[in-house]
């Protein structure tokens, strides 16, 4: 899977490669937002009780009447004979789809155990698709921890949709990566103002309404973790727009402007649409910048959004970067972001969590961005933290959200100033 492609070494950042215990989620976690994006899809993990427990714990308290995700838990009998496992899976899928007739797309999601026992989910998907005779499409991808970290699960899910996307050379802007619906609507209307009418999204809101792809498609990545999907789209004839990611005022502006440029929109018209947004976004940022300016920031590797967020927090909020961790570094997708980081920024790839925590303790940063397993322990050591998982759940893209995004990081620091017990 798309682990780092070390093609061109970036000039400025210092890269520290670490291997050891990785305190990150696996790709199954991305089901938590993917299933909300496509309400007509069901995500069935084929795995163990651990997988079920992980998705449940990552989803936290979000308990729906009946969620649109679940786990087919392998038992000892399934391990003993794979032929039985396939029959069992077919039976379970039939029961599930009978119970949930509204489901149009079923994703069979591979896990660590299903991959280790080499349960062939692609053949299962083909078999089930033909059994359901067009009523439900059954797809498969891997969300396993041995293949993917956290957000890479979305990359693999989108890759599995790719073969179903019709071919068309129609000119269109394709936004790739899950966005909150309201944020997506906002981008679509802004692009319309700039004269770009054909704007489509992957993943779509309905799993069956997949956008086409072909020579006229220009791909704009909304998320920085879609290495495999972006390359596969390019191999279908699409062109990848090089841009930073739409976090913060600057990133969002450059992201939209890059798309406009790719469509030959007059820069004056782009400025006319975006300048008021930029001005308003900066005003929204200002009070948070006051809190964040000069504060020292340490980002633990987690969601793969660390580098763009570090760029935003350093350039627009005035924070000093102590270390920017990333689970893996895709230099091609991060090229624009790396170039915008202050020179000499310490970037670390991979993780050895104990040694990284030693660096945190030595540096005593003002804020650490980290996962839920590390946050309270660091707070107890007197170090303020921001949970990174909120960043994949909250609408944070776009100029209009820049103030909210900064607020997420300013809040823990404000809170510390508010509390007094003596």
């Amino acid at each position: 899977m798309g682990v780092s492609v070390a093609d061109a070494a970036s000039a400025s950042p210092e890269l520290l490669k670490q291997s050891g215990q990785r305190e990150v989620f696996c790709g199954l976690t991305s089901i938590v937002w993917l299933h909300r994006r496509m309400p007509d899809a069901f995500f069935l993990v084929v795995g163990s009780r651990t997988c079920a427990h992980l998705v449940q714990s990552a989803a936290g308290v979000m308990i729906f009447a009946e969620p649109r995700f679940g786990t087919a838990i392998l038992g000892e009998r399934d391990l003993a004979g794979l032929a039985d496992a396939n029959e069992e899976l077919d039976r379970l899928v039939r029961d599930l789809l009978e119970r949930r007739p509204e489901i149009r797309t079923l994703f069979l999601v591979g896990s660590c155990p299903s991959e280790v026992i080499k349960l062939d989910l692609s053949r299962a998907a083909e078999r089930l698709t033909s059994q359901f005779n067009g009523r439900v499409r059954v797809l498969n991808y891997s969300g396993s921890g041995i293949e993917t970290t956290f957000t890479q699960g979305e990359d693999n899910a989108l890759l599995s949709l790719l073969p179903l996307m019709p071919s068309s050379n129609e000119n269109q802007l394709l936004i790739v990566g899950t966005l909150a619906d309201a944020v997506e609507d906002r981008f679509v209307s802004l692009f319309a103002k700039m004269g770009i009418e054909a704007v489509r999204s992957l993943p779509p809101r309905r799993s069956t309404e997949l956008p086409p792809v072909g020579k006229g498609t220009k791909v704009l990545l909304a998320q920085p973790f879609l290495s495999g999907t972006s390359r596969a789209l390019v191999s279908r004839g699409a062109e990848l727009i090089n841009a930073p990611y739409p976090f913060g005022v600057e990133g969002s502006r450059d992201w939209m402007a890059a798309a406009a440029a790719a469509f030959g929109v007059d820069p004056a018209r782009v400025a006319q649409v975006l300048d008021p947004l930029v001005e308003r976004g900066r005003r929204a940022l200002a009070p948070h910048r006051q809190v964040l300016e000069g504060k020292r920031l340490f980002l633990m590797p987690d969601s793969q959004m660390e580098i763009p967020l570090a760029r935003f927090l350093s350039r627009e909020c005035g924070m000093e970067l102590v270390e920017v961790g990333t689970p893996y570094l895709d230099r091609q997708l991060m090229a624009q972001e790396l170039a915008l980081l202050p020179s000499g920024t310490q970037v670390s790839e991979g993780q050895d969590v104990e040694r990284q925590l030693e660096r945190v303790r030595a540096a005593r940063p003002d804020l650490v961005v980290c996962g839920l397993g590390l946050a309270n322990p660091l707070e107890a050591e007197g170090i303020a933290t921001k949970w990174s998982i909120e960043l994949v759940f909250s609408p944070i893209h776009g100029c209009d959200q820049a103030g909210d995004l900064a607020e997420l990081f300013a809040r823990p620091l404000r809170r510390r100033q508010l509390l007094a017990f003596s």
Partner: protein
Amino acid sequence: MELSLWTYEGPPHVGAMRIAASMEGVHYVLHAPQGDTYADLLFTMIERRDRRPPVTYTTFQARDLGGDTAELVQRTIADAVQRFQPEALLVGESCTAELIQDQPGALAAGMDLGGIPMVSLDLPAYSKKENWGAAETFYQLVRTLLKAQVPPPGTPKPSPQRWQQEGRRPRVNLLGPTLLGFRCRDDVKEITGLLQEHGIEVAVVAPLGARPADLVRLPEADANVCLYPEVADSVCSWLERSFGLPVVRTVPIGISATEAFLKEITTLLGLTGADGAVSNGGAAPGLPATAASASRLPWYSRSVDSTYLTGKRVFIFGDATHAVAAARIASKELGFEVVGLGSYSREQAREVRAAAKELGLEALITDDYLAVEKAMTEAAPELVLGTQMERHSAKRLGVPCAVISTPLHVQDVPARYAPQMGWEGANVIFDSWVHPLMMGLEEHLIGMFRHDFEFVDGHRSHLGDGAPSMTPAADPVHPGLKPELVGTAVDPAASTASASLGVATATATLEAPASGAIEIRWSPDGEAELHKIPFFVRSKVRRNTEGFARERGIALIDAETLYDAKAHLSH
């Protein structure tokens, strides 16, 4: 292969983590793929722990599988021992590592660990679950630390009353409390205090707060108290077999159980006088004479305001220990009617079945929360006592609920002292089960004044979130009461708001007529009559009347049908 949407228990290695994290000086090396570190957040978030669980994971990835994962295990063990310098080491594997068969326990056994006791955990991930894993880990750890001390067969059992000759107070171990258990921290404090009042010392509490050296001292006690059988049963049985340590098995939750517990332990230790009265062996004076003076539950339950609790229909589901205790308290000490009892603890199913049988019920033993929700719906309870799962199901059904058992939510780990066991536990139980219901007088007044113009249909109890007994979901046909949250996207990270999700979906699912059954309609006068009935019982009357009509093949319910049904059902 079984379909699981939400699970009551995690995998067995999470049970092992609960033992390691509950203790001091124990470290657990877990051979597990990247991603399995998610389990840390159970402790740091739900329990708000101020430190990471003492677990080092190998977090192997696909690229490691091509190479030497056994070497990775050995390196991880060596690093963890050097970094954490544990007093005892647990070595095990999660579900995926079990498949690649590196046998980390055997690898560890071949290493020089500097003499640290090492326990190789064999926890079958594809057939066992979290509580079993916790019990097995606790048992293996105790056994490893104590096996050198086991007296030869034939050694006479020590008398639990030997303290009288040894010139000391009697002492017992409290076994079973863990992190992520239900209110364990507070139960330990309550029971320690209760025993002290009776002149009994607590020797070792384990696993919670114990070090390996404390486990070595377990046989020095006169008896073991098996506080949480889910975790401590196998350890208690082994200590009984190997060291002749008797076990106090009554779990002191509720008034009668606390009394029975005291009777069992004082009799065993020889603290009961010739007249049968419990003496405190000459310990501190001021011993509470009876439960009536020690806990407010008996008087509160007898007081007139509690009259309205009589026969309240209650549905109970949880781990075996808490579910069985809840059934006894609900039926005997609060005068509720238990209309459903079940547990996800298959290991303790026998006890739950027996308790259910006593109440004329069939126990529901399952780990499928949808089956529990279905049983709950069919039982039409007025109060649900359950886990976090049942709290959500009850919310969807518009029935008040109190959480009595794991699995937990962060809000079930309260800041205040809130035990379940002993006298104070009974007070806590009274408050937390009765408060979600509408107060007696309030219920009466709403009934009296419901025709006044000030009266708003859907009036809620003063107890904000605690009184969803008349939420819109309970009366889905009423047009004025559509839940506002239908279809709105709620930030899943926002716990409080998200709990309300799914109201509409649940309503649709639950109210849909069973396929094949006749479709029942209400005539305008039937509907009008129905709306004269107080809304908090309306959905029940609606359901009962429809059931009555269905049985008789009546397709249109009018006012007469409603009164026929009322007359029929009141017999």
